């Protein structure tokens, strides 16, 4: 039996004299092998009172942190996982706060967390909540308050989640000893109680629960005017002394060899090779014991020492864990630790949209609208996580019955995470030439509108079997090429497509991302309901519809005018 980390915990939170409790806290002690790979998470957040959405911000921070942290790949270190999760959360909060006029009044919260794993404690801290450690009777404050003092009475929070796009988090690693007691508090508690008082309370209380009650009661008695929260964690036994972080660092897991049907890897038997490309292989596998079916994705040997590729491969799995939608393929949790680098996805037995298109029978309009609706839901699940799919194409959508499911995370872009500096150049996926939005090749900023463009392309192809801009699209490289593209209305290929539906597609297929729909839901709405703007085919001026013809016409008229004048002049 391996030694396992054991802890005793207690936590309390009260609104105190305030009407609402804007603190949020959580402790998660996994019971399965996540305890070894990820550890115990203790997190506390204090929504900033000046912020109107403080309560919500604190809750998003704590709940989001706990759930996302455990979703990070096993191969990521605690530091890497927590950092990436915090950066993504910060983006999310900051983005929501932008809805308010002043960012300071948006979704802002302090955040402090202790992660206990095997023999180490990892501290992450931003804001003015505190983490203390009591060892051998001595209480020590481990964090520094991030406040800017204006004068004796006034001080402001200098750093917090959701204040700015950039996030600066304090990070520390400490060795654990049996008997270490960690205390996390918000300013409602440590604002009125000093070291001596806190230490005395901790010493005199028989149990952690009693100590937590005592802390809250004493702070209230001392006149605290804020929400009061505290968390206590005592280490009762240490985990195995191997440094799991180091063992599981990025490049430790070896690449699996080329697999053939019949081979077994970690209990998964290969049934068939689904796909092999220069970048990766997909196998359909079945588990020997459970009989569960799954798809195994393995990295291509071509990249065996390519740090950027491995980083991206590992991130794919992380993204798969974070996205939760019935219209996005789900990741399968491996029942046993992996000995090779790969990940598992659910197996969907159905045709891809590409094979539907290849049948050369345009799909029923109602069915396309239904597919559009569901794909948009799937894409929104990505966008909610500040993630762009970037590679939506008919090959990447599989039909589960009537339900389209988005597969493949090979090209996703996660805001925040992709900007973290690394020792290598990150790979830049440009999507698939035929389906990626123009901004990829024009080196412009990528927004969810890029996924909207790809979705519209896929729908157009479902309706007509053709590409709206023809073969010239894949060859376009500069702005000039893109503006010279000519859009062929969908009803030219398939007379059953209504005018207004083509209008909606045309708008989503604008080269300039700003001219597309501001959101996917508006696009889908216009696909379902005739937009009066697009009811007639020729509402646009001639100059816009047929620029060449228009200028030819103008020139011809001018020439005619000149000829008449010349004639008059000469004859007169």
């Amino acid at each position, binding site marked *: 039996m391996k030694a396992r980390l054991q802890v005793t915990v207690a936590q309390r939170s009260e609104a105190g004299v305030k009407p609402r409790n804007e603190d949020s806290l959580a402790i998660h002690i996994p019971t399965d092998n996540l305890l070894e790979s990820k550890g115990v998470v203790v997190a506390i957040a204090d929504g900033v009172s000046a912020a109107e959405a403080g309560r919500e911000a604190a809750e998003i921070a704590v709940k989001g942190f706990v759930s996302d942290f455990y979703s990070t790949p096993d191969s990521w270190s605690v530091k890497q996982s927590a950092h990436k999760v915090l950066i993504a959360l910060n983006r999310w909060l900051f983005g929501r706060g932008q809805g308010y006029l002043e960012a300071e009044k948006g979704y802002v919260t302090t955040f402090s967390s202790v992660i206990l794993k095997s023999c180490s404690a990892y501290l992450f801290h931003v804001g003015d909540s505190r983490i203390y450690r009591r060892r051998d009777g001595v209480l020590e404050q481990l964090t520094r308050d991030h406040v800017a003092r204006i004068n004796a009475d006034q001080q402001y929070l200098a750093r917090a989640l959701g204040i700015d796009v950039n996030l600066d988090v304090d990070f520390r690693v400490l060795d654990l000893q049996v008997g270490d007691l960690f205390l996390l508090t918000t300013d409602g508690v440590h604002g009125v109680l000093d070291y001596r008082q806190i230490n005395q309370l901790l010493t005199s209380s028989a149990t952690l629960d009693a100590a937590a009650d005592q802390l809250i009661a004493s702070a209230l008695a001392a006149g605290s005017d804020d929400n009061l929260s505290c968390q206590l964690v005592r280490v009762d036994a240490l985990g195995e002394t191997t440094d799991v972080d180091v063992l599981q660092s990025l490049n430790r897991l070896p690449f699996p060899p*080329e697999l053939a049907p019949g081979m077994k890897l970690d209990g998964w038997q290969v049934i068939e090779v689904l796909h*092999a490309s220069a970048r990766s292989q997909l196998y359909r596998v079945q588990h020997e014991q459970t009989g569960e079916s799954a798809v195994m994705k393995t990295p291509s*040997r071509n990249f065996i020492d*390519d740090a950027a590729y491995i980083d991206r491969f590992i991130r794919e799995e992380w993204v798969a864990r974070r996205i939760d939608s019935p219209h996005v393929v789900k990741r399968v949790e491996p029942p046993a630790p992996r000995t090779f680098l790969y990940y598992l996805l659910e197996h969907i037995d159905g045709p891809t949209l590409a094979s539907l298109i290849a049948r050369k029978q345009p799909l029923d309009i109602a069915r396309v609208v239904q597919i559009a609706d569901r794909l948009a839901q799937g894409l929104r699940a990505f966008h909610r996580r500040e993630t762009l799919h970037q590679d939506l194409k008919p090959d990447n959508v599989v039909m589960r019955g009537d339900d389209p499911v988005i597969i493949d995370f090979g090209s996703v872009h996660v805001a925040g995470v992709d900007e973290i500096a690394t020792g290598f150049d990150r790979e830049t996926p*440009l999507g698939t030439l035929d389906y990626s939005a123009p901004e990829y090749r024009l080196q412009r900023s990528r927004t969810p509108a890029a996924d909207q463009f790809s979705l519209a392309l896929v729908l157009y192809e479902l309706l007509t079997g053709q590409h709206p801009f023809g073969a010239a699209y894949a060859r376009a490289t500069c702005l000039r090429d893109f503006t010279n593209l000519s859009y062929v209305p969908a009803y030219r290929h398939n007379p059953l497509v209504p005018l207004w539906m083509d209008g909606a597609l045309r708008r989503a297929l604008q080269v300039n991302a700003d001219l597309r729909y501001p959101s996917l839901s508006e696009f889908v709405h216009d696909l379902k309901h005739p937009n009066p703007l697009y009811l007639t085919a020729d509402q646009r001026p001639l100059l816009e519809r047929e620029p060449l013809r228009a200028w030819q016409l103008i020139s011809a008229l001018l020439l005619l005018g000149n000829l008449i004048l010349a004639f008059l002049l000469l004859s007169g």
Partner: protein
Amino acid sequence: MGSIGIKLLDVANPAIRTLHFAWLAFFITFVMWFGLGPLAAFIKAEFALTEPQWKALLMLNVALTIPARILIGMLVDKFGPRAIYAGLLVVSGIICIAFAWSQTYTQLAISRFLLGFVGAGFVIGIRLVSEWFPARNVGLAEGIYGGWGNFGSAAAAALLPMLAAAFAPAVGWRIALTIAGVISILYAFVFFHFVRNTPKGSTYFKPKKSGGLEVSNWKDLWLYLLLNIPLHLALLVLVWRLAPGNLNLLPQLWANVAYVAIVLLAVYQFRKILQLNLPRLRAGVPANQQYKFKQVAILSLSYFASFGSEIAVVSMLPIFFMDTFGLTPVQAGLSTAGFVVANLVARPAGGWMSDRIGRRLALCIQLGGLSVGYALMSFIDASWPLWVALAITIINSLFVQAGCGGVYAVIPLIKRSMTGQVAGMAGAYGNVGGVIFLTVLSFVHASTFFMIIAVCSAVVFVAVMFLDEPEGHMVEVLPDGTVQLIEVK
């Protein structure tokens, strides 16, 4: 590993189709490039060329290939293999026809020099094939591409003299080369029409910069710079050999222009290498990204001896056989074809050998074999029975081509992410070998020429002893199919 081979007849599979189009393109470039040697008798007769003039043509044929590889590599990055291969076929087809209808020695020399460009076609196909095949069979696919395309030099040796002989003696060789050029131009359009850069619907990643190699420490940087010197030195030697005071085929002014251009090219290359490596080395290279540059140097030298000697020998062998044994051009062509025909199997076999008996041992055997082979060839004279001379030549060629295959089997194992650059370096050294050996030939007789190659190969043989056997994880498949990891020390 990987039980899945390549079904060559499955032309419905776009990857297989692409492979066939690619090796055929490579094949055609080689027919044009190596069409010179087999037609030697006709051309020498028509222009009444002196021996030095003829040997200068052979040198010119391979000179431009060295810088062309760099240029073609950059163009492929920018425009993709499809357009560049088609363009190369058209341009070299035109130059080939221009060569065929040259009226003066100067025209011959200039068009041959320009045709050296066609030798860079190899690189384009390597890139194309790697886009189309997954890791499990890309090695085999590249082997087929390289081996079958190389077979073009055998086809040139066997077919061109026959074609030439079929027409009137004065214009026969011209018509033969014109046909090759026209086929190249026509094929360019076929190639452009049917071939795509990447499989349809595959995700497109911005290509990595194919500039210089990234080295791991300061010592390796010096070694890398050192290894780059011969690339330019070979060109300088060539110009010097052609300049006044020597063969006197190049006016002093042009020689000076060439010197300056080569030096500028060298400065540019060195600057790029330093720009890439200095910041990296100052920051320190992470342990997991380090590799030994020594390996690259040894492989480059091995390719110098194997492929370098091959392209030099193929150019001179027909004339050698004609002069020594009094063969007709057609017979000499067929004998030369014997030297290259083994490519079909010998090159892939060299790779296979490397997989089986270990990288270093395989290379040792291959280089040892070819140095002994060339040493024996240096003793060939008119008193030998023709069949013995032919047998020695063909057996030697097996080692030469197996050596080429052996080198390319190790290249991906040095550092996978830099396979392209390492292959480029070794490939350039193959061309340097061609230039150097042909320059040597312009000074000496064939027997001394063979002996010098033998000695060079023996030196490289010693260098190969210092090659480290690539290490790594190995996996083992148990009888029940379970894949297991075993650590190889």
